[in-house]
């Protein structure tokens, strides 16, 4: 149920005592007689007043110990992160240079392998094998002509 006579803003101003005495009296009378406005006002009052209830939390006796431990962890992590990149980069450089050296040595070794003595002969043999078709080629004109 909504009241069309008094706005929310007016109720807020009334609650905060920010209205003129005349307006204050008007709204007060209205709230006392309007069920919807009374419902809104009383709920606002009861909810907003909870702000004044302060529950101070108990302190933790182990807080300093925990903070000290975390500070030690942070320092250890910092030390690790200072040296880690150097180790990482050094390891990377070593691995890459090792791979390059292996590659170069492999290439040199392959290049220096001596040719077998019968290398020439075998190549000749291989080439002769390619002349497999010794048939006499026919003339194109003769292909589709029936022999008499």
């Amino acid at each position, binding site marked *: 149920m*909504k009241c069309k006579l008094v706005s*929310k*803003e007016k*109720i*807020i101003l009334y*609650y*905060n005592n920010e209205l003129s005495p005349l307006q204050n009296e008007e709204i007060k009378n209205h709230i006392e007689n309007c069920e919807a406005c009374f*419902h*809104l006002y009383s*709920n*606002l009052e*009861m*909810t*907003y007043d*909870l*702000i004044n209830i*302060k529950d*101070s*939390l108990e*302190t*933790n006796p182990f*807080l*300093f110990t*925990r*903070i*000290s431990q*975390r*500070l030690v962890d*942070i320092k250890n992590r910092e030390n690790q992160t200072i040296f880690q990149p150097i180790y990482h980069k050094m390891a990377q450089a070593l691995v890459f240079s090792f791979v390059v050296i292996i590659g170069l040595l492999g290439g040199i070794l392959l290049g220096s392998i001596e040719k077998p003595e019968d290398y020439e002969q075998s190549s000749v043999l291989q080439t002769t094998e390619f002349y497999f078709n010794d048939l006499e080629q026919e003339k194109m004109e003769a292909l589709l002509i029936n022999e008499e």
Partner: protein
Amino acid sequence: MTDKELIEGIYNNDQSSFRILVDKYQSLVLNTCHSFLHDRTIAEDITQEVFIEVFLSVHKFKKEAKLSTWLYRVSVNKTLNYIRDNKKRSFIRNIENYFTRKEDNFSENAICDSQHSEDLDIQEERIQILHKSINALSKNQKIAFTLSKLENLSYQQISEVMNLSLSSVEGLIHRAKHNVQNKILGYYEKK
């Protein structure tokens, strides 16, 4: 031991000075974080973060400044950062849930909601409405309002923490109060 001596001690890596500072200001930091979060466990975690930050950046602290002001500032920043990050995380979680267990969640949520509303008594419900209304405020309004109403800081102290003029703080708190009350009324109007 004065605040100045404590800061000097921490600057010189004196553990006992740091212990005294933690014991002296633990309540202030914890309650400030809790005012924004309304969750003790998370507030304790952030309290640890605050003191770690204090220990690590003590060299940046201006000696003429007030230690409590600095602690309030660090606490508010850490807490608001947590809320911001948590919003992002919960948004991503919601998307994941939507795609993975859409139907299950709908039914589970419906059961949970009905049980939840049954279990909550009126007082708890009012507290929830109040917290939601405060959380809906803009960042600056929320800081000023929370420090004023929940932490009982003076306008002068809030202006120092927020680095704003006194009149700006007054305006922020006034608008925040009206916005919170408007939200509360809006909730009961719909009911």
